[in-house]
């Protein structure tokens, strides 16, 4: 007798984040964040190959980063589906598994698997079966390769992706479903290491119908809340240096009569733990105390304590330059959306780092209104994805029933320029970035081309994308996303055979390319697997 696996009839909402991931399900009138990784709401997106049998994922893997960085990977989302400078997809060989190499899709699949296992362990009574369907969040600027790689990672983890959803849209859904809204909103997403801003039009006033439309987006790579802790450490270290003459950040110099690097590293760690606590305290009150009795013992046997007070104003000054970068990105996004500050009705905060008061003060000053703070910025994206998932059905599975009695319509904009290579390696644009994809049908654009040579019987169609307008395909930022061959074209004089190329782009920003020649031969390419 074989056992038949029982599948959960829920569609899960998954935030597969750069630093942390979360999973949620809509149940009994609300999106529930499922506990993962020892009862936490989020799982660090870190994977470490311990040995031939064991792979650590989450907090344990993050702990191992210091000990064994060669066998540990973090921020894999930056690599997924991305073609490197060498023209190849990211792959890594781990010394602890010399016999094989792993793609970013494989690594992401490990994270998803751990996320699902954690959710099952903590919430079996809710799920009532193995998770099978999911809506996965992706950044607003993911291209087709990145989307497909994400879908493949989910497949490897045993999940069928019912839909992908852009992170800001997920956050907007979590916000809009709380009450009836008809607004233009700005999603300010300050994560651990990246910053993204998106402007959306939301309308949830219709009976059982809500619509979402992205109007503009912008981002800053390598700007995140991790830098805030470092700023607090720097302030504390400077104050400590005033009294002790020891610079705990300078591991090279022999200080204080023989304070060695090991002692300083330990002191740094003690300070790091305290800086995290102080950052939270500074979000609640105007000052934070950093007390560390016996911080370090110098070479002369003198014991040094750290006993300082940090004002919020000091902290604000330290992080202001970082936040100004985000302010510029916000302004660019508003301009790109052809809007003004006054058009923005609400600012929604995403990411734990937005708890820092200066973020809120800066946005309040900028917009003349306080950001909305009724939703948990750490889990809002997963919660929004779960709410979106709760409105969906799975065509072949009648057991999956919508949990939410409303329809969500997501209008979208094309995020990248899409085109093909033509004569002299020119990039010929077919679908331009910023065009609107209708909610009920794919965006279809066709262009006619002709043969370059007499008696040409084959044509290679190579599809490219770029975030900016480019003239040639060899320019930086132009990426090849697929190609196909049209053969058996009847020999004719140059320019006589006409080829119509059609690009069809759907709501998920996934692309189908079709070519048809005047003599009836053609080909197709589907850069879409959802």
């Amino acid at each position, binding site marked *: 007798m074989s056992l038949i696996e029982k599948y959960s009839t829920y569609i899960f909402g998954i935030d597969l984040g750069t630093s942390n991931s979360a999973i949620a399900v809509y149940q009994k009138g*609300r999106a529930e964040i499922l506990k993962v990784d020892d009862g936490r709401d989020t799982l660090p997106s870190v994977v470490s190959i311990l040995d031939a049998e064991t792979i650590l994922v989450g907090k344990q893997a993050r702990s191992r980063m210091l000990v064994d960085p060669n066998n540990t990977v973090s921020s894999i989302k930056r690599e997924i589906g991305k073609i490197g400078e060498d023209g190849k997809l990211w792959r890594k060989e781990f010394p602890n598994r010399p016999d094989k190499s792993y793609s970013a899709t494989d690594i992401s699949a490990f994270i998803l698997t751990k996320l699902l296992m954690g959710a099952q362990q903590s919430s079996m009574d809710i799920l009532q079966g193995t998770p099978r369907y999911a809506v996965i969040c992706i950044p607003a600027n993911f291209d087709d390769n990145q989307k497909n790689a994400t879908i493949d990672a989910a497949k490897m983890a045993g999940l069928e992706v019912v839909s992908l959803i852009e992170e800001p849209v997920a956050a907007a859904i979590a916000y809009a479903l709380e009450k009836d809204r008809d607004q233009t909103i700005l999603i300010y997403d300050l994560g651990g290491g990246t910053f993204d801003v998106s402007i959306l039009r939301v309308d949830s006033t219709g009976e059982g119908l809500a619509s979402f439309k992205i109007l503009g987006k912008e981002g800053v790579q390598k700007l995140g809340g991790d830098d805030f802790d470092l700023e607090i450490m720097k302030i504390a270290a400077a104050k400590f240096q005033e009294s002790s003459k020891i610079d705990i950040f300078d591991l090279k110099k022999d200080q204080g009569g023989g304070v060695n690097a090991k002692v300083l590293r330990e002191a740094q*760690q003690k300070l790091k733990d*305290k800086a995290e606590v102080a950052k939270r305290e500074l979000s609640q009150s105007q000052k934070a105390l950093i*007390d560390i009795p016996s911080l370090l013992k110098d070479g002369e*046997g003198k014991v040094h304590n750290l006993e300082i007070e940090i004002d919020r104003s000091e902290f604000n000054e330290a992080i202001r330059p970082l936040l100004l970068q985000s302010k510029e990105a916000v302004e660019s996004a508003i301009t790109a959306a052809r809007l003004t500050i006054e058009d923005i009705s609400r600012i929604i905060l995403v990411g734990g780092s937005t708890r820092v008061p200066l973020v809120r003060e800066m946005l309040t000053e900028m917009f003349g209104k306080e950001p909305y703070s009724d939703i948990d910025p750490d889990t809002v994206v997963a919660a929004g994805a779960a709410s979106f998932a709760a409105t969906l059905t799975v065509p072949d599975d009648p057991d999956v029933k919508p949990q939410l009695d409303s329809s969500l319509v997501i209008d979208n904009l094309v995020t990248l320029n899409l085109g093909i290579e033509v004569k002299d390696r020119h990039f010929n644009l077919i679908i331009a970035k910023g065009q609107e994809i209708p909610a009920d049908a794919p965006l279809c654009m066709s262009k006619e081309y002709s043969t370059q040579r007499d008696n040409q019987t084959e044509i290679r169609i190579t599809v490219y994308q770029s975030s900016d307008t480019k003239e040639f395909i060899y320019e930086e930022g132009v990426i090849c996303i697929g190609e196909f061959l049209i053969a058996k074209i009847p020999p004719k004089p140059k320019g006589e055979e006409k080829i119509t190329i059609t690009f069809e782009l759907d709501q998920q920003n996934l692309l189908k390319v079709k070519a048809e020649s005047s003599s009836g031969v053609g080909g197709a390419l589907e850069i879409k697997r959802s």
Partner: protein
Amino acid sequence: MNTDTDLSTEHQDLPTNQDGATQAATESANNVVQTSSAEAIDNPPEIPDSNDPSKLNADETDEQVTGSLSGNSHNSDFIKNEEFKSQEVVSIPSPIHLDLTNLTEENKQLRSEVTSLRSEVTSLNERLAKLEESAKFKFDSLVKDAIQKDDEVWNEDNEECQKYIAQAKLWHSKTERLCTFVLTAISDCVSRFDQCGDLMQAINQENATLYNSLLDRYKSLELSKKMLERLREPLDLLKKSTLPTEQLLRLQEQDLVDLLRSQTDESEAKKILAKKVKETGDIRYKAVREWRDLAEKLQKQWLNFIEKKLLPALDGINEGKRYARHLASDLSPSYPSPNYQDKISNWLRTYKDLEDILLDALKNLDVTPMMVELGQLVDYNLHEPIGIEPDPTQPHESVKEIIRNGYEYKLPDQEQSLILRSAQIIVVKNK
């Protein structure tokens, strides 16, 4: 609602007709009523209105009668069987047998109208009875189904809620214990700090060099004392947390009956009930969530207090003790007399005494230091590496040094300890 009252009220509201012919008709009609009343004596409950002269007022139009009946129909559609019986008052009097020879043409006409009205009443009553019978039966069972469904979900929710209530109560009582034991420990520690302070005064008077050698250590202890004393205020706040009430919303049969009172369509009624059951379940589950969130909040608060507030003070004392390991021998050349060693030992014992007081308080809260052995392989679940060092004498990825103690806690009826804080270690790295 009583139909009897309804009808009479309506009749009282009717305008009074002064026309003689009508009056005559009224009289005749009264006779009719009396006759029918007499004939119906065998079954009195069916004709409760027989003495009301306005009952068959000639001015009573079709519309008014119909209106009155539809009102009854409307209001009693979904009233349960028992209630319905008491309403069966719109009945048709027995067939009329009158001598019509002396009646005038006008009277005949009126009689004909009365007969026509009666026939209409009969037909309406039949329709009403059918409608009420079918609607009453179906909706009654629908309501029962809805109640049963809600009961099932209520039981599930209640079971889940009881689990959270138990957890919240557990953490509430643990918080009370935390306040009691830690406040006592702080007082004990402060006394011990003060003893050390007295000793410092004495040493200062006897030997300034020794005093100065101990001063930086003493300042560390003073800082730990301050850190502990600052905990009194948050502990007082923790003590004040209270628990909410334990009631879970349950669907009431009468609410559903009221909800369907104006409803005639079965599929619509089903939809309304399903929506109500879902809404009630969602509202009820909010209370379940509140308990769950409270349990989580109390647990987090308890863990956070120990990890982020109490343990850092203890870490400072541990660290001071570690740094003072060779202090006694380092200072011995400065002793003013050989027996001074006792005084210094007493001073140094401050670390151990403070540590014991705090560890004892933690033990009473089922919190114990994590056992980590040097040389054991790193367990990434329990240990947090903060540094690496080569050591060919030790296995790769083993514990080289413990920098900060880890702590575990136990819950009642659970064998396995849970991690309160991982141990920070230096790891051997030989590859």
